[in-house]
């Protein structure tokens, strides 16, 4: 018999930290990652030597950035492993850290994501090196893929593209309240629609900016929380973790993965107070909230316009600003989502606080073919 996270011993997020997501700069990736790790350690109130294993999520940085980062925290001899899973690198690192602690192999684990973009031009992908050619995949950048999905969604539900763009209004407003967001400026619908057209009806302000940054979380067992005297206001329990790949795609993959994690955690979609999801492009948020069961298919736009997904609404979606405003440095993004949910469930999210948030869900997709969903709950 296999076990789920909930069958194992409880695991908690106890520390979170970021380096602000930002456009490519001269700042060393070491500086980015150390800021996030040291902030997470300070948040948990523990010193570096208490960390027993480190999962370093990367995407576009070359091989093995973990060593040049972690050496500056003092050599403690711990296991160091790198995780690359495209956009879901950080989510994968977090899942593995949680499973390791829940299994009892370690008591305290770190998941840190860091990234530097490569500059201009498309990022190389192994998928283009298989020897199997394609008719026109060279013509279809990620934003074009989502412009195609946007056309399909708009026609299927008779939704005007102007309404899809309203996701951007909400998420830019949330990002404007987040000191770690790459984009911190509220935008009107007119500004978003009037931006530079990219593909289909997408404009640049409806697309995530891929920049640099770092995010770190520390996960711990109950034993360690007691032994290290972690403050009672810090721990948020990870109650579910699921990951799926490429049997189905896009919204169906999100639906499949979310159903697994909700069953594991014993939760219903309507119980979720706060969601961080992969809104790299505006249409994605609408497709995913429907796929997660937060509303009926085709209803996401109506609820968006009613404020249901606002902070203070039925379920705050992307209160961090999401990928559209918080940004998407790729390696850190999934870990940053866990950090935001943790702050929300602690009631420590400041002016972004979803009132009374007790149950949160983090969702990430990568390379269009992998999906991770985690649930977190305040005891």
């Amino acid at each position, binding site marked *: 018999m296999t076990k789920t996270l909930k069958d194992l011993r409880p695991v908690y997020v106890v520390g979170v930290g970021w380096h602000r997501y930002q456009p490519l700069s001269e700042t060393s990736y070491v500086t980015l990652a150390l800021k996030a790790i040291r902030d997470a350690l300070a948040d948990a109130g523990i010193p570096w030597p208490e960390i027993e294993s480190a999962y370093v999520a990367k995407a576009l940085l070359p091989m093995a950035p973990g060593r040049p980062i972690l050496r500056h925290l003092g050599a403690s001899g711990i296991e160091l492993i790198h995780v690359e899973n495209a956009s879901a690198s950080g989510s994968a690192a977090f899942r593995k850290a949680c499973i390791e602690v829940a299994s009892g192999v370690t008591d305290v684990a770190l998941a840190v994501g860091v990234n530097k973009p490569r500059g*201009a*031009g*498309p990022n190389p992908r192994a998928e283009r090196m*298989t020897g*199997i*050619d*394609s*008719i*026109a*995949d*060279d*013509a*279809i*950048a990620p*934003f*074009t893929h989502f*412009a*195609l*999905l*946007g*056309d*399909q969604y708009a*026609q*299927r539900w008779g939704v005007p593209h102007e309404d899809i763009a309203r996701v951007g209004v909400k998420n830019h407003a949330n990002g404007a309240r987040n000191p770690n967001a790459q984009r911190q400026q509220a935008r009107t619908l007119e500004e978003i629609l009037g931006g*530079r*057209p*990219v*593909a*289909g009806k997408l404009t640049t302000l409806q697309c995530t900016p891929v920049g640099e940054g770092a995010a770190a979380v520390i996960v711990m067992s109950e034993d360690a929380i007691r032994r290290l005297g972690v403050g009672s206001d810090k721990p948020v329990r990870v109650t579910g973790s699921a990951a799926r790949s490429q049997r189905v795609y896009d919204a169906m993959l999100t639906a499949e993965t979310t159903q697994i994690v909700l069953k594991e955690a014993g939760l219903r979609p309507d119980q979720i107070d706060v969601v961080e999801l992969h809104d790299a492009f505006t249409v994605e948020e609408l497709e995913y909230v429907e796929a997660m069961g937060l509303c009926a298919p085709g209803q996401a736009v109506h609820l968006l316009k009613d404020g249901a997904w606002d902070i203070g609404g039925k379920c705050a979606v992307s209160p961090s600003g999401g990928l559209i405003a918080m940004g998407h440095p790729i390696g850190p993004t999934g870990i940053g989502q866990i950090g935001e949910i943790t702050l929300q469930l602690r009631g420590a999210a400041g002016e972004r606080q979803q009132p009374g948030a007790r149950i949160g869900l983090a969702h990430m997709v990568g390379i269009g073919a992998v999906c991770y969903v985690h649930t977190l709950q305040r005891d």
Partner: protein
Amino acid sequence: MESRKPALYTVPLESGSSVPHLKGGRCSCGYVFFPMQTFGCERCGATGSSLQAQLLEGRGCLVSSARVLMHAADNRKPPFAVATVKLDSGPVLRTLFADYTEESLRVGTRVQACLVEVARSDSGDPIGELRFTPSPEDTNKA
């Protein structure tokens, strides 16, 4: 006309259909795929003689389309139009449209493959790139 990617598609066959064919495959499990490959069936994992080459007629339905106005790679200059097409034989593929138009096309529009001259060979023959275009017989074009 010569095919720009002869491993992927033919020029229109002399007998039968007037549209280019796509070089796909069929697994013994029934799964039809494009393009042909021998790494293993994406549905059941079968290899070897279970995977047989099969020509797929370049006809299908539009799943979605988009006009591309920004493109980082310098191999194609925007604007151009792309589409997702579900072939009548089953596979879903992504392709360029033959003509750039500002008009949105209705999902479900009948489409068919065609070759658009993109270059000339050393011997001066036209080289055709596979694209899709609305089928003349479709009466539901937007």
